[in-house]
């Protein structure tokens, strides 16, 4: 691990925003988090992926200093969230699944309140509110009462209150939950706009959302971290079964002969195509792409198409979570 504890502060690698170490949280007999450890770098956009009840919201509520962990440590910019909670709260903007909005207030007044309660000086509040409203495309709604806004706009106001004080860390819990397709596209753009300016942690159980928005994915299942990495790393990791797909023109026997001499192939499926060519689907756990293409060409076959079928994120997610289910 990269950190050493000194009182309630930690020394850590430069560029690290969040370090969680063996984090545990129990609600009575229910264990919501069970030894979760991870790191998130500054400026990263990280997706927290997991089925309902995986512990994502609990983890985000701990990160947002709303809950205290039962055991383990979590630091934000080197400061422990338990020992220096108030300092850490000053570094974060938090949007829960249901936006925390005072519906009787106008958007502008609410954002001003959110900015001032986060310590923004009164003289700067007006400018901050206007900037944030523009970023979240709320500038025309600034004098509207929150209770009159659609759910999509309420979500926008929720994000606006989380970034109005320009925090280094923005935490978004299920930001697209309950939105219609058009609102999802708008929200995705809004969240993408946060990248680079803030470290962003997003939770969702919707795979495509995470894969389209985040640089890196943390996969949770039943309170445990069961996978971590980029989508590429998670879906195409070495040692995992992958499929190579090819389209060749030639005799079936020639294909079988070419493949017979190759090692590292676990399964082969050959199907005839309507245009007379052959579809090959080859299972392997090694990177045999170069050898395979050579073998096919040297076997007198015309290689028309060749690709490595990526293990889809859904399949990876199910594999990761399914493996852990099986352990229980």
């Amino acid at each position, binding site marked *: 691990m990269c950190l050493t504890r000194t009182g309630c502060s930690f020394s850590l690698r430069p560029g690290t925003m969040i370090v969680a170490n063996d984090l545990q949280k129990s*609600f009575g007999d229910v264990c919501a988090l069970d030894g979760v450890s991870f790191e998130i770098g500054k400026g990263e956009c990280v997706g927290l992926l997991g089925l309902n009840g995986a512990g994502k919201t609990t983890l985000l*509520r701990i990160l*947002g*200093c*709303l*809950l*205290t962990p039962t055991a383990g440590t979590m630091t934000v910019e080197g400061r422990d969230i338990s020992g220096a909670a*108030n*300092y850490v*709260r*000053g570094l*974060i903007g*938090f949007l*829960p699944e*249901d936006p*925390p*909005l*005072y*519906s*009787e*207030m106008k958007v502008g007044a609410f954002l001003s*309140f*959110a900015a*001032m*309660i*986060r*310590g923004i000086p009164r003289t700067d509040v007006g400018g901050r509110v206007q900037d944030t409203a523009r970023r979240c495309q709320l500038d025309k709604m600034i004098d509207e009462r929150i209770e009159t806004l659609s759910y999509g706009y309420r979500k926008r106001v929720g994000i606006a*209150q989380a970034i109005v004080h320009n925090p280094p860390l923005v935490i978004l819990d299920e930001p697209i939950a309950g939105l219609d397709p058009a609102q999802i596209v708008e929200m995705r753009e809004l969240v993408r706009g946060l990248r680079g300016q803030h470290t962003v942690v997003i939770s969702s159980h919707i795979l495509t959302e995470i894969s389209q928005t985040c640089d890196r994915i943390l996969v949770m299942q039943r309170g445990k971290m069961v996978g971590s990495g980029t989508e590429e790393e998670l879906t195409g990791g070495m040692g995992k079964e992958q499929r190579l797909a090819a389209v060749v023109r030639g005799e079936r026997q020639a294909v079988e002969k070419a493949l017979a001499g190759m090692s590292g192939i676990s399964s082969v499926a050959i199907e005839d195509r309507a245009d007379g060519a052959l579809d090959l689907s080859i299972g392997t756990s090694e990177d045999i792409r170069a050898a395979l293409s050579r073998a096919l060409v040297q076997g007198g076959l015309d290689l028309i198409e060749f690709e490595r079928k990526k293990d889809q994120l859904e399949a990876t997610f199910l594999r990761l979570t399914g493996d852990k289910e099986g352990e229980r």
Partner: protein
Amino acid sequence: MKSVYLIARREALSILRSPQGFIIAALYLALVGLDFNLRVLGGGAKYSADVLTGFFHELSGFTMFFSVFISMGLIAKERETGTFPLLLSSPVKDFEIILGKFFGAYLFLMLLTLVTVYMPLLVMVNGKVSWGHVCAGYLGVLLLGSAVLAIGTFCSSMTRSQIVAVFLTLGIGMPLVLFWLLGRFADKPLNDIFAYLAIHNIHFAPFKAGKVHLRDIVYYFSVTAFFLFAATRTLESRRWR
């Protein structure tokens, strides 16, 4: 303390703008006015001082009762509507949240109570009013109101249901009011303890008669501080659950 001011201002404005606040204000002022006309002024000729004493006695009852409803949503409503994470994830200490909420509600209660000042002014028309008596009476009412609001704040911090908060506040407040009965019938030394703990009887009587005793001020401050402290601890403990 800037956070306390911000939270208190937002809370007071929120109560003032809400239908709930409007209904509480309307009922409070209507009932106090009716009671003043029928019970305090009624029943033949009276000295101005007796009218004032009766007025503050009645006003204290209404203030206690309505304080229960003013405080019921202070924390419970935030939990009920899901707005609490905004405050809990802000760089604000738990005691500042509690103080802000309390002072917001207290400001509303002060406004309501001070609107009733036209009633002592009416007494001036046909009698002689001691301003010291009026100030002492209002001081007592506001101290009593702060104690009940603090109890309500504590109860509101224990639940996400405003109705449950009302019953919890009544559950603590009613015995505190009725301790004066136990103080009358219990044996020594329990009778002295119950009489001292009673929130209304011996501690409020001097105020309504126009007298201010430091011991009574200390009592109301102690009750207020105790329950606000308890509310803060309840809020802190929720972060562990």
